[in-house]
């Protein structure tokens, strides 16, 4: 069996003058959960749809399960599952009918009842999609893309628009699918989602991949991989926080709630000089919290912007 589920080489996709994807390369190992992350408009969906064979590359190549996704499109489609962003299903058909309908398009198919049971929608088998909640619709949309028991599953922004609880339950489902041995490629603009779910992430910005590694290594690779959150007895200016090892500083909130967020390389190295400097500024630390940096910080460090700027 080929080692790579997806291979993308020098992929470029232009629409007229606009370059949506600007020469990217990456590979996804079989059995892996791979995330393409980045802000809206970074080129994530275009990349995904080109790999799926929906869009033709301007140049470069995309291979899926060892096959060219355009020249061997028919065979590729038999073996992959695709959940599209913001795609709906038929009105007037029940969940069971939709699954059986989509199943009829494939050589290999799973029984509708088994699929519905997997996401706890057995008792909705005879309901129509419009009578489901947002979270249920999204769960249904994922199993509807698995009617052919795919080896490789593409999920485009699977949790966009869901409330936190529904999002978490969807994460469970995605992890569970991966546990069964399905390779998953997903896109998301939620850094937290990529960080919790993915083995490997490609961070995209303006059509390029700006970082490609596991979330842990990306975070460890930061110059300042820790965040120090402080509440102080009085407002201070930046000079009172500028000690060796402190990277970017951001301030949120007003008055009592004013929070200083410092990126630091090492808490043990930076804390003593920081306490001294604050004492000089006649400020005391009321409350302190240390947390590991997130993918969000990685994106900030790489691009100088927040993902949802």
């Amino acid at each position, binding site marked *: 069996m080929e080692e790579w589920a997806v291979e993308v080489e020098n992929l470029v996709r232009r629409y007229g003058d606009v370059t949506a994807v600007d020469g990217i390369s990456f590979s996804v190992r079989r059995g892996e959960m791979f995330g393409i992350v980045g802000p809206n408009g970074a080129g994530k969906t275009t990349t995904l749809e080109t790999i799926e064979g929906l869009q033709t590359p301007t140049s470069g190549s995309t291979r899926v399960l060892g096959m060219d996704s355009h020249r061997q499109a028919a065979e590729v489609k038999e073996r*992959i599952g695709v959940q*599209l962003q913001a795609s709906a299903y*038929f009105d007037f058909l029940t969940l069971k009918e939709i699954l059986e309908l989509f199943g009829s398009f494939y050589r290999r198919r799973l029984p509708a009842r088994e699929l519905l049971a997997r996401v706890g929608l057995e008792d909705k088998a005879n309901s129509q999609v419009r009578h489901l909640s947002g979270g249920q619709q999204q769960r249904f949309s994922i199993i509807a893309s698995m009617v052919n028991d795919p080896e490789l599953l593409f999920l485009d922004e699977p949790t966009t628009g869901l409330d936190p609880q529904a999002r978490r339950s969807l994460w469970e489902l995605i992890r569970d699918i991966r546990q069964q041995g399905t390779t998953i490629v997903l896109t998301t603009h939620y850094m937290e989602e990529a960080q919790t779910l993915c083995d490997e992430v490609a961070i995209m910005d303006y059509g390029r991949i700006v970082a490609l590694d596991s979330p842990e290594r990306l975070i460890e690779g930061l110059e300042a991989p820790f965040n120090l959150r402080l509440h102080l007895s009085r407002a201070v200016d930046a000079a009172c926080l500028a000690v060796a090892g402190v990277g970017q500083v951001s301030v949120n909130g007003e008055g009592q709630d004013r929070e200083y967020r410092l990126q630091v390389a090492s808490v043990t190295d930076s804390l003593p000089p920081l306490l001294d400097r604050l004492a000089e500024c006649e400020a005391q630390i009321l409350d302190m919290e240390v947390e590991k940096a997130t993918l969000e910080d990685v994106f900030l460090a790489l691009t100088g912007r927040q993902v949802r700027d």
Partner: protein
Amino acid sequence: MAVLFAASLKILVRDRLGLFWALFFPLMFIGVFALFNLDAPPEVDIAVVNEAPGAFSETLVDNLVSVEMFKVEPVGDLQAARQDLKNGEYDMVLLLPPGLGQNTEVKATVFYSEANMVTNQVALSALRRFVDEFNLRAASATPTVTLLEESTSTRDIGYMDFLVPGILGMGVMNYSIIGVATSLVTYHEKRILRRIQVTPLPVAAFVIAQVGAFLVLSVLQTGVILGTGVLAGADVTGNFVWAFPIALMANIVFVNLGIVVAAASKTVAAASGMGNAISLPMMFLSGVFFPIEQLPPFLEKLVQFLPLTPLLGALRTVLLDNESILSAGGDLALIGAWAVAMVLLASRLFKLE
């Protein structure tokens, strides 16, 4: 493919609003026109004010009563009768003044109301004919020329008989053009076509199944509309079996026209607007409600090439004239030409993305 086709049919049959346009809308037309009862001879209420009692005027009134169309009511007061005429209680008031029939200077006078144009025209000419015939008979003259009326049709064709095939053609056309166009645009908007594209099923197969379901529905439409027409008193049972293949064939034109409309529309509202812009003029010009011969000659020449016109022509040939489908050869050839052209155009225009 069988699962897909069954699903496509289920979608159409479960769509109540769609079925309303497919079936109840055309049936409503038949119902409304049946209520008007346009085939019944008009009845004219005449109040007769007889101010010249005597044998002459009595014969005249008796003769008037014997005319089927006239409902005669003798009244005494002219002023009151004219007031009732204004109120719409009578269609006409006929005054027979003293001396009528003796002195030729004395004229019978008929009063009528401008409000009731259609009845006036029919009733006045009938009254004129009645007076002419009465005079001839009074003069004991024999008419030198009599007219024998013979229609080209083997039977009398009433308005309902004419209307029902028209409504059938209209129903099939409206439902298919607008139904196909809006459902395809909906599938595009909801990214269902995109979703089909990532499966091994060719999108063309999906579209063909959808369109095929509309063709099946048009067979149902044909049965229901003709059946209702018969219940409403229309005599359209001629060679009714042929109506099914004719409607089906013409519907190939309309469903493909629907695909063309879908290809040109970005939103469902635009699709239904454009669909209506195509089907409404045809509905009025192609002879659904009145024969195209009543149009100005240049327009008549033009509209006979619209796709609905030969459909209605062929339907009326088999349903009203009891002719076989072969007699509608010219109409069928025109429908066939439209079908080929529309299939080619639809397959060229309907591209994803």
